[in-house]
């Protein structure tokens, strides 16, 4: 909720500043929008995921923030090329995530997080190059882009426990881990959760220029990446009593453990699935039209 407020505040601030910049400007086409452009954007990052439960598949989304820096060079009135860097990060709050798991399991259990790590926590550092198009109307400019690049994708392992709905007795222990087998010198199953993978980008940016060099922007975009080399493993273990004493002495020594349970390794069942592979963004930002502008120069000579 705090994230939404921050973004809303940014938008409000930018919109409130726009008239100040525009007062001294005449309503002319965006001459300075040709040539070099840089922009910075900050916004909302969403990564959809699915949970395969005992009853069905259920769908949810991790969310967080994205920061993006981009350089674009417009060769002419419409076409250009860009290079960008962006950083996405996010996670699913416990209650939201277990709501999805609960739906997938057919509302059979109660849930408890086992560790300090939020579920479906992701990080993605992305570098893209690609082509840009622009269509200007007044002070507004619509700029779709497509690109290709590399994403360093990283997701954290997490785990949780399920409990009976009736009496809240422990039922099973679930752990999610991300495994890579791409290094032949690493022991199989060792966790190497990050991966540099091929990625694609598509987005549409809308800009508004209250001044010649400066513009405000809003963008919706999507990234997808080929992270199939990472194995998303879901392991389920049933709980068993922590200790089964064989005689009276042992029962007395370990009396404190009489109600304790531990995951039973012999009951472990592991299922592999595909990691989430797409991120959607909605961002706002600012930008500047910089440098030599051959189009304007040519125009002035006429």
């Amino acid at each position, binding site marked *: 909720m705090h994230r939404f407020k921050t973004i809303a505040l940014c938008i409000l601030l930018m919109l409130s500043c726009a008239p100040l910049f525009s007062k001294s400007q005449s309503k002319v086409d965006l001459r300075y929008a040709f040539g070099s452009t840089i922009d910075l954007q900050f916004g909302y990052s969403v990564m959809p995921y699915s949970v395969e439960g005992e009853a069905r598949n259920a769908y949810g989304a991790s969310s967080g923030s994205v920061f993006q820096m981009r350089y674009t060079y417009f060769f002419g009135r419409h076409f250009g090329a860009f290079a960008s860097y962006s950083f996405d990060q996010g996670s699913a709050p416990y209650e939201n995530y277990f709501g999805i798991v609960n739906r997938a399991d057919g509302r059979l259990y109660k849930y408890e997080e086992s560790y*300090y790590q939020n579920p479906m926590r992701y990080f993605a550092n992305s570098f893209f190059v690609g082509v840009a198009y622009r269509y200007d109307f007044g002070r507004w400019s619509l700029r779709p882009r497509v690109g290709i690049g590399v994403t360093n994708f990283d997701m954290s392992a997490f785990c949780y426990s399920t409990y009976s709905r009736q009496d809240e007795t422990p039922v099973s222990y679930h752990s999610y881990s991300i495994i890579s087998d791409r290094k032949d010198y690493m022991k199989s199953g060792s966790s190497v959760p990050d991966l540099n993978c091929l990625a694609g980008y598509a987005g549409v940016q809308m800009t508004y220029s209250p001044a010649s060099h400066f513009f405000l922007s809003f963008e919706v975009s999507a990234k997808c990446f080929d992270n199939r080399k990472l194995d998303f493993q879901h392991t389920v273990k049933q709980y068993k009593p*922590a*200790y*089964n*004493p*064989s*005689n*009276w*002495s*042992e*029962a*007395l*020594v*370990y*009396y*404190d*453990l009489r109600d304790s349970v*531990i995951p039973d390794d012999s009951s472990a069942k592991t299922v592999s699935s595909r990691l989430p592979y797409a991120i959607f963004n909605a961002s706002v930002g600012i930008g500047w039209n910089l440098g030599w502008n051959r189009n304007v120069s040519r125009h002035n000579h006429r």
Partner: protein
Amino acid sequence: MKKSIFYTVMTIVLMATSCMKHSGNIGGPVHNREYVMTLANDSPFHTMWYIPEHGDKGCDFAGELPDQKPNENLLISLDPKTSFDVYVTNDGVESPLETYHPEDKVVIYVFDPEVFSMEDWENIKADGKWLEKFSLTVKDVAEADKIVRFKR
């Protein structure tokens, strides 16, 4: 960097709390000389404590006194206002406590040394000539803070 420090600290905390809670190897055999309970003679008399072995007897009869008078070496001798910490060992020698099943009741007899030495064993058994007879479950002992007290 911050993430690594956080993981390290959390791991240490988890390991420390885990050790404090269990203080033993879960699922494995009882450690050598694992503390079980304390027998406390809170009386002003010298006493001798005896725990029959379970053996092949049925669980309901395991606490009964044997037919033959047990060797005095098998009894625990406690002076007035003293106590004895009972440990179990894993060296192949079973203590009487280890022959009982977890859900059994263990019977502990407290004798007057003079009566135990002088009286005929049959009379002791027939007339119940012991100072105290505890019949305890694991729960009883654990809830008494692992102390079995004889008071007079």
